[in-house]
């Protein structure tokens, strides 16, 4: 499903494009521009980041509420199993999504001084979709974890 962009009124809200994505807004003027992320676009972006190296599943835990209360602000925490020593640590954590307008969400770079590979942020999710986090280790290996997230549509918005 394509992310959709619609005219906004007082307080432009991303929800509008989610409403469009829900397919119920037949009367709304809906436009979209540029490439939209798809599972394929996400895979291509992952390949760009990993340089085509194999990605194994495991070691990475992605903590996102399964049922999101509002896609405009979704808490997300990522942790990676790693001793975080100079010899063996996480160098980077990259997060990707399949249905926002772009596949990349955030890339975070850390090292042994972190002590622990545990980070969190808040993200926007345009639709119900899969989120993938990939950790790049100091030995060059890549590990991944994923989560399926259901985004609900808020009631009582500003626009009609």
């Amino acid at each position, binding site marked *: 499903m394509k992310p959709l962009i*619609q005219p906004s009124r007082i307080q432009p809200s*991303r929800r509008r494009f989610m409403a469009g994505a829900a397919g119920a807004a037949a009367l709304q003027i809906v436009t979209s521009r540029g490439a939209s992320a798809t599972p394929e676009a996400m895979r291509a972006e992952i390949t760009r980041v990993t340089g085509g190296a194999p990605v194994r599943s495991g070691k990475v835990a992605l903590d996102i509420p399964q049922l999101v209360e509002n896609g405009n602000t979704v808490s997300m925490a990522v942790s990676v199993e790693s001793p975080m020593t100079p010899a063996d640590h996480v160098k980077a954590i990259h997060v990707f999504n399949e249905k926002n307008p772009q596949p990349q969400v955030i890339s975070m770079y850390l090292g042994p001084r972190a002590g622990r590979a545990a980070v969190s942020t808040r*993200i*926007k999710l345009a639709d119900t979709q899969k989120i993938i986090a990939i950790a790049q280790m100091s030995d060059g290996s890549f590990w991944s974890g994923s989560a399926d997230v259901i985004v609900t549509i808020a009631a009582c918005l500003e626009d009609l």
Partner: protein
Amino acid sequence: MARALINVPAKAARGEIIEIKTLIQHPMETGFRVGYNGAMIPRDIISNFVCAYNGVEIFRAELSSAIASNPFLTFTTVAAESGEITFKWTGDNGFEAIETAGITVA
């Protein structure tokens, strides 16, 4: 001027892993929305964040349009020595914000 809220423990034991939380005021306009007049609202986001501990980078992030308004980031570091932790956000339209927090390590 953007406000930022930083949460760093003022004191820590040497070797302790501390959590750092940062929240900064920013609209994070995605660049994918159409405004009132039918024209695209241009992208206006924070695209980079760097945290340095006594001048040495300990954490860095590249943000995209998919980061929520008023970006929130948390991460950890080992309390190594007393000194200053600095935070720098940069982004579209020349956005730049710098904050500093002191820490005493015993």
